[in-house]
């Protein structure tokens, strides 16, 4: 299917050029991200390729420096709490939206998706001013609340997508066989939609773990997350420990992405 038999030579050439162009763009997409990996293993404190001498000194700093360790711990904690909250709220909402009788679906859906759309600075500044009224700025609770709001659209989207392939007759069958509402959900519906729920949870975790702007506004030194620590580092004086941290984040993204790919493969 690469080339139809009736293609003219000019068309063949055109197609080769387009494919070459696409390959170049894909390289442009991937290469810049992976450039940080060799740089993080460099002995030198500057960023030139090829790397002259490899070392683990920046990783030693990353895992030996309490500032970086605390930042990683804070990020993990906020991300886990966000994931639990966002997945619960988002899955429930998706279950409602997927029902045929759901009222005002378009309006509600527009609201539920809007945290993805509203510029994150507006969410950050709004939360900073509003949460300040309740003493929630510079607390982990405030950060988790704001991150949960940002993460729920991903859960709603993935679970709704999974539910569109779910046969609701299965729930009815469970009820007719005597299962209560909760029992039908936990023993029939949930296992069927679990891949979608876990995908949503992975998205929620990544959203919180990677988020910078809201965290910049809502955290003080004690709750400072890894991305905030990286951001302030890049701003002041970019140091190679940031490359090591970025490589760790990249590794985490690749793992989460692989987990997601496995889930969708099973489902499809």
């Amino acid at each position: 299917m690469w080339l139809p038999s009736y293609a003219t030579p000019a068309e063949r050439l055109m197609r080769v050029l387009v494919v070459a162009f696409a390959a170049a763009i894909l390289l442009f997409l991937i290469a810049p991200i992976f450039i940080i990996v060799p740089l993080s293993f460099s002995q030198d404190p500057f960023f030139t390729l090829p790397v002259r001498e490899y070392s683990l000194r920046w990783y030693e700093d990353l895992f030996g420096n309490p500032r970086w360790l605390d930042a990683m711990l804070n990020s993990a904690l906020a991300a886990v709490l966000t994931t639990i909250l966002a997945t619960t709220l988002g899955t429930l909402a998706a279950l409602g939206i997927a029902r045929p009788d759901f009222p005002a679906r378009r309006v509600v859906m527009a609201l539920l998706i809007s945290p993805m759309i509203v510029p994150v600075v507006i969410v950050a500044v709004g939360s900073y001013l509003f949460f300040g009224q309740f003493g929630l700025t510079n607390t982990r609770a405030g950060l988790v609340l704001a991150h949960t709001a940002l993460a729920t659209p991903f859960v709603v989207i993935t679970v709704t997508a999974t539910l569109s392939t779910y046969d609701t007759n299965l729930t009815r069958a469970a009820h007719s066989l005597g299962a209560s509402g909760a029992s039908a959900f936990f023993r029939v519906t949930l296992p069927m939609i679990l891949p979608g729920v876990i995908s949503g949870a992975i998205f929620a975790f990544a959203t919180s773990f990677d988020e910078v702007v809201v965290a910049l506004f809502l955290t003080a030194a004690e709750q400072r997350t890894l991305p905030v620590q990286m951001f302030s580092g890049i701003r002041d004086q970019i140091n190679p420990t940031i490359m090591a941290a970025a490589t760790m984040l990249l590794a985490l993204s690749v793992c989460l992405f692989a987990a997601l790919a496995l889930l969708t493969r099973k489902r499809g």
Partner: protein
Amino acid sequence: MTATPGISPDIGRIRTFVAVRRAARPARRAAFSLALPLVGFLLAAFVAPILYLLVTAVDNPETRSVLPQTLTALEGWDGSSTPEEPVFAALAADLRAAQESSTAALVGKRLNYEIAGMRSKVLAAARMVAAMEAGPYRDTFLEKDGLWAAPETWSVIRRNGAELTPFYLLAAVDLKQSATGGLESVAPDQAIFLAVLGRTLLVAGMVTAFTLILGYPVAWVLTIAPKGVAAVMLLMVLLPLWTSLLVRTTAWVVLLQSDGVINAILMGLHLTSEKVQLIFTRIGTVTAMTHIQLPFTILPIWSVMRSIPATQLRAARSLGAGPVSAFWRIYAPQTLPGVVAGCLMTFILSLGYYITPALVGGPQDQMVSNFISTYINRDLNWGLAAALGVVLLVVTMAIYGLFLRLVGADKIRLG
């Protein structure tokens, strides 16, 4: 409206409809109650902060709280002459109280937004009043500074007695209230925000155009590639999407540095003999943003292209269309829904960029978001920050509305 049963088939149908709706009510309620926790949560933790931001943009508490007696005394003022002694006595009393509670700076800073230099003059007056035993105050004030004789000063104070002010919102679009109450442009050296908004729209437009030009061929090749190759290609599109925005921005900071990889490549290829300034430039910002947004444009286009049967192009060709004509007249129009969805999404997301311009851009590449952050953190001018937020929100929501009309919220897919 009263209806007699059986009179008209229309009324009968309406009744059936109403009855069916009523019968479905418990089911609708049950469905909605599942979404209720999230709706409630978002109203409290997401919508309320944004509404609070809107209120902050028009809130005007400083003058009212610090100069209450002055405002009362000004009620009888004619608005065109220097006020009489009672007004000055009231101001003196207010400032004396303000000096004790250290709130003079608050009102000084607020009035300074409208009259340059007002902050130091209010503070000086407060110190002067605190040192005085008793009046008369009018002459002392007038001697201290001619500013207190000007009716404009007093009309600004009186105007700011109002609970709400349009000042910040007007300032966010380079306008201000004139002394007579009409609208006028701010001084040219202060008129920067429309330019910032224009720059934000321009950068978002450029990024959208580049992602379309670069992404459309990629989406097309994804549809014609053999299955295995397409899977690898898709991986290369999705993985960047999964990588933290900060990591991708960091990568560009490193790449674009004057001692960085791109300069090394350019010099290695002898394309340039000296280092090119790439970081802190518009080119760098747009390149990094295009890189980050490409997957958002590619994926919707690809998902539409996938659904176009390959036989259509063959049919067009067999009916005599040339390759160019077949593409433009048969294929391209059908991909339009994907193009619209991808471009609108990229445009919306590009409008709100903060991290990338902050780290990769120069002072001339800072977008509305960056100014909002600066006014909150550095200048502590929350009203102006909130007003700029309102402007950004209005523009974004207008385009989101367009997206909802043309594409729909339920069409958003994640990979």
